[in-house]
Every structure is written in C-alpha cells, then in structure tokens.
C-alpha cells in the first residue's frame, strides 16, 4: 500500500514538473505558431509585445504564468487556461526565459 502511494506520488511529481515528450512538442508548436501569431515567430513582438528573455527579466514567474493562463484585460491577450495548465505554462515560461 505504502509502495503504491509512493509510486503515485513520484509519478504525479513527474507529471506536474515536466510535460510528456508528446505534449512538449505540441506546446512548442503552440508557442511558435499560435503565440507567434501576435508575438512574432522569433518572439520579437508584433501586435503583442516582445517575449525575449531581457524583456521578461524584471517580471515574476507568477505574473507571467497568470498572464498566460488568465490573459490580460483591456488587451488582445486571451486566457489560455482552457488549453494549458499551470505546470505547462511554467514550462513554457522556462523556455522563454532561456536566452
């Protein structure tokens, strides 16, 4: 029983931290193509602001993750929560922060 609980615990951590390889490739495509529609394929901005590491540097993870998930009122940024969970948003942010 304890062993099963432990296993469950370990797998859920694995799930929480890292999307599956398949999911990662879907998310990468989403970032490049769909986020890129407004923020630019190279993330240098367009209708939406640039998402380059230096632009994001001064902003907290929580602010940026909530922007991804909830959108930003009064702008064209929509909420992505129906399609992306918190951990996936955090993983995407990790990609954006890497120079």
């Amino acid at each position, binding site marked *: 029983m304890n062993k099963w609980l432990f296993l469950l615990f370990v797998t859920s951590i694995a799930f929480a931290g890292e999307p599956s390889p398949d999911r990662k490739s879907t998310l990468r*495509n989403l970032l*490049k*193509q*769909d986020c*890129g*529609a*407004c923020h*630019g*394929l*190279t993330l*240098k*901005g*367009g*209708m939406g602001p640039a998402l380059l590491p230096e632009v994001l540097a001064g902003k907290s993870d929580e602010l940026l993750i909530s922007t991804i998930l909830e*959108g930003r009122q009064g702008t*064209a940024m*929509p*909420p992505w929560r*129906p*399609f992306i969970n918190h951990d996936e948003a955090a993983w995407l942010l990790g990609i954006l922060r890497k120079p």
Partner: protein
Amino acid sequence: MKKLFTLLSLLLSFHAFADLRATGDLGIVIEREDGNALIINTTEHKRLSKIEKLGDLSHASVVFSRDQRYAYIFGRDGGLSKIDMLKDAIVKRIIQAGNSIGGAISQDGKLIAVSNYTPGGIKVFSSDTLELVADIPSDYGKGLRSKVVGLVDAPGQLFVFSLFDAGEIWLADFKNPKAPVIKKFPNIGKQPYDALMSPDGHYYIAGLFGEPGLALLDLWNLEAGVKHILSEYGKDDEKLPVYKMPHLEGWAIAGDYLFAPAIGQHKVLVINKNTWELHDTIAVVGQPVFVMARPDARQVWVNFAFPDNNQMQIIDVKDLSLRKTLTPGKAVLHMEFTPRGEQVWIALRDDNQLVIYDTETLQEVTRLPANKPNGIFFSSRAHKIGL
C-alpha cells in the same frame, strides 16, 4: 567554330522558348517558418520554384506589380523583398523597419507602401528600385508613435491606413510623391486592428478591437468624416476570448451586404451596405478570422481562430445559410480564390500542405506539399483595388 556557335545559340533560344512563362496564373505561397516563398501555377497545380532567405515571414503579405512580373513580399522583420517571377530570383531586398505588418501598391503601380509597428508609421518606396520616397511617422502626440494597420491603396494615388494605438485613420495623397499630403481623421474608435477597401475603392472600413462596431470612411465624401457603425452591436454581450486577430483584407462585400467577423463572438455579421445597419448574423463554429467572398460573391468562405482552426464554413449568399462545414486539415491559416473563383487554395499550416477545392462541388481537387504554409497570394491581385 562558327557552326558550333550557331548551334549553341539555337539551342539557347530553344531553351528560352521552352522556359517561357506567362504570369497571369502564377501565385506566391509563403512558408512562414523557413522564410521561403513558393512560386506556384494555379492552372497546373504545380510548384515551380522556391525563393529562399526572405527573413521572418511569420506574418507576411504580398502585392504584385501591374505587369504581374514582380511580387513584393512584406515580412514581419521589416523586410521588403522584390521577387522576379520570371527568373525565380530576388531582385532586391531591404530591411526598412524593425517590425512590419503589411503593404500596398499604388494605383499607378509605381509606389510600394509598407505599414510598420516599430518604428510606427508607413514608408513608401519606388516599386522599381525600392529606394525610399517618403517616410511618414505615425506620431500622435507626446512623442508617441502608433502601430500602423490596415494599409491599402485607393483611387487617386492614395494610401489609407489606421493607427492602432491612436485610434485614427490617415489618408496620404501621393499624386506628388515628393510632397505627399496627409489628411488625418482622429477619434475613429478604440484600437482599429485591420481594415479593408471596398472592391470599387469607395469605402474604407476599419474593424475595432477596443470597442464594438466599425469605422467607415466614404472616400467620395471625405467632408462627412468617419462614421461609427454598429456601435450598439454586442455591447452588453459577454465576449469570448479571441485566439487570433481577425484579418479584414479578405472582408467580403457581396451584393448588398458586407460580411465581417464579429469580435469575441462566434458569428459572421451581415451588414446592409446601403444603410450600414446590421441585417443579420450567421452563427459559425468559432471566432472567424478570414471572411472572404468568392469572386462572383455567391459564396463566402470563413476560417477560424484556434482551437477551431481545423474547420471552414461556406455561406450561401443567396439565402444567407450555411451550405457546408469542411474539415480540410490542421490549422487552416489562409485561403485564396482563383481569379474567377472556380477553385480555392487553402493553407494547412500544421499538415504542411495546400489543399485545393472545387467551389461548386465543394470536393477536394488535390493537395500539394508546403512547409508550414501561411499566406497564399495569386497574381490576379495585381489588378484589384485595395489588394
């Protein structure tokens, strides 16, 4: 030796003959991720060549010279490339700004205008040499420059465009290219995000993102100023999220009606062109992005924003009914009708394909490979006002 030379020149001229290529049924397909442009033949359904190294084409558009020999490609990264469709070559390429959204060609074909986000404004170039003719910054006070959207040509050697951040429409008269005359229309509404020119060059209509309705400028009656239409529509309704900005270049004027995407509602608006009042709405499966009329205006084709971008719907203009829902593939980004509309080409970004449909039977004709295609532009645009 002389004989050999004669033979050679004969061979060469034969070769030249074999290579003759008329441009009326050519088109350009953009491969957004690779930064390539494919030259295609719309009659033969063939890819003829691939022009590479055109920069960031994640949002690209194309206009054609009036002789239909050259294509001018506007890239996201401020790149402006002039392509020779007879020689499959880049004639000239410049980076004219940091971030761009589109462009237009003048009535006489001599000027190319580009609308820029950064630095905000339009720049106008000679279509022959790509040398700068005019630079018009979109200053709107306090040192601020607005992103420029919805740039089109209009009769009388005009360019018309909208200032997203400022909420203004500007009209630039280029009858004298060295001294353009700018007329500004302020307070046209919040966040115009794109615009269209009616096919007869009579009306310029900008869609508003920041508030309900549209801004309408009658180019035959500039003194009347910009009229705000459909201001009440959907004012109190809850807005659905918009996962891709609609594009208005393909807005459809069909008969007495203007078909336009609703913003934040899964509907196509049908506006009476005589009264500019809402005639009807047509419920569709998602947020419309392109709402485009077949050249004869009997049908209107609609594609959608994520996550409904695997579908297309076709409206029968005769009775404003939905004729069919198609599922051509993953991520339908753009469509282009053949000059007289018997077929339509559709870009499927995530399937790496172009699919061609017969617009009468709505049956698939064929598919062609293309890597992450977005825009499709046929040379017949050369002779259309506003495109």
